[in-house]
């Protein structure tokens, strides 16, 4: 049973970092996509949304190609920064972040598009710089809708399986998250361990969704 707590702690750590990453990237890119007008915007939007519809194993394979030790980027990271992403929990973070990214990005873009540009213009005439306009007007008005996406993205990252397995493998105590541990237990015929892991996972997921519903009343239900 102790393995389950280790897996739970690791899962929360991975999902937490992945969500933090998505919060910054999803909100930033969502804002840029809501405001910028340039050719190829729709194509870029589709590419950024792709992780939502693509099989996680395919995403995992892309990530292996992109950040594996033999890729230019992966090689550079190992050589210059000493960072290995494959078969590490950091790799699991990247995998979970990519899979859950569209949930934050989509929510952020839609939320920023509902903010009246006139309010941003009003802020400019009052002397606020562009960064101040973002943090004082755009973000506070979009925040509630973004939060819903962020919590869903956390829930999605908690349950990540395919891409994480491809990139980080299944090393107990290091990269074996809850969902992977469930799979391994069932494969090994350890029904007791599987039952316990499944119960823990279910409770954590329900807790996340309940708190999401409490933080943003009505939003989660409407989105689903």
């Amino acid at each position: 049973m102790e393995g389950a707590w280790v897996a739970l702690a690791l899962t929360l750590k991975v999902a937490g970092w992945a969500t933090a990453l998505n919060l910054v990237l999803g909100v930033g890119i969502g804002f840029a996509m809501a405001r910028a007008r340039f050719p190829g915007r729709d194509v870029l939007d589709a590419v950024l949304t792709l992780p939502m519809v693509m099989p996680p194993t395919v995403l995992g394979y892309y990530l292996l190609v992109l950040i594996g030790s033999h890729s230019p980027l992966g090689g550079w990271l190992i050589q210059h920064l000493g960072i290995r992403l494959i078969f590490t929990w950091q790799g699991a973070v990247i995998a979970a972040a990519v899979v859950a990214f569209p949930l934050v990005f989509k929510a952020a873009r839609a939320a920023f598009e509902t903010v009246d540009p006139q309010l941003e213009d009003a802020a400019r005439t009052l002397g606020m710089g562009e960064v101040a306009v973002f943090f004082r007007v755009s973000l506070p008005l979009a925040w509630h809708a973004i939060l819903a996406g962020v919590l869903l993205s956390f829930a999605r990252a908690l349950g990540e399986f395919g891409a994480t397995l491809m990139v980080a493998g299944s090393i107990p105590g290091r990269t074996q998250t809850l969902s992977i541990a469930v799979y391994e237990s069932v494969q090994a015929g350890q029904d007791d361990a599987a039952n316990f892991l499944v119960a823990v996972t279910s409770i954590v997921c329900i807790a996340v969704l309940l708190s999401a519903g409490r933080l943003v009343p009505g939003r989660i239900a409407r989105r689903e």
Partner: protein
Amino acid sequence: MIWDIDLQRVLIHGHTRFELDVAFASDASRLVLYGPSGAGKTQTLKMMAGIARPDRGRTVVAGRTLYDSASGLSVSPQERRLAYVFQEYALFPHLTVRQNIASGLRRGWLNPSRAFTDPAVERWIEAFHLGPVAGHYPHQLSGGQRQRTALARALVIDPKALLLDEPFAALDKSLRQRLRQELIELQERLRIPLLLITHDDDDLRVLAHEVVHVRAGRVVASADTEESVLVQ
């Protein structure tokens, strides 16, 4: 010259193309830009404030050159120091009346707190009788209170000129008359140049020292009020 404006811009919305070419010069301290909706008045005002980009031209307000495509000058909207009152007032819905008014005074990335105080903010709250609603949010205000909050917010930064986009359109008739009078008194007390755009004859009659007629993106006549009313 208080106002020396010469602005051109081509606006394309889908398949429609709108050419805006507005030029006027005036020394009137209360100037009205008059014309039907869709004539390009709001666009002109936004270009003057720097929140819409002209293709080329020149903007001089109260002796300061704010934009001049010939010399490549374009002062940012933040530094133009023009009070701009939007048609629907564009009050920040997540901030109280006091925070809205103070927002132009607070520098940095954070909004003023609900308890923020500043002599200038308090003075405007008092001048516009907003004391009882200073802690309220915009959606809790009446139309007149909204307009006064928008005016106070725009004036607190000590602007060089006051630009108003149909400031009375959202109000009922009896309130309009009173607020027009208040605006005249305010303008005379502050001695601040005022430019107002409207399609309402009454605004023209009561407020204008001079009027610029705008039709389909062009200035069609510019005269003092007496003449223009006769032309009507």
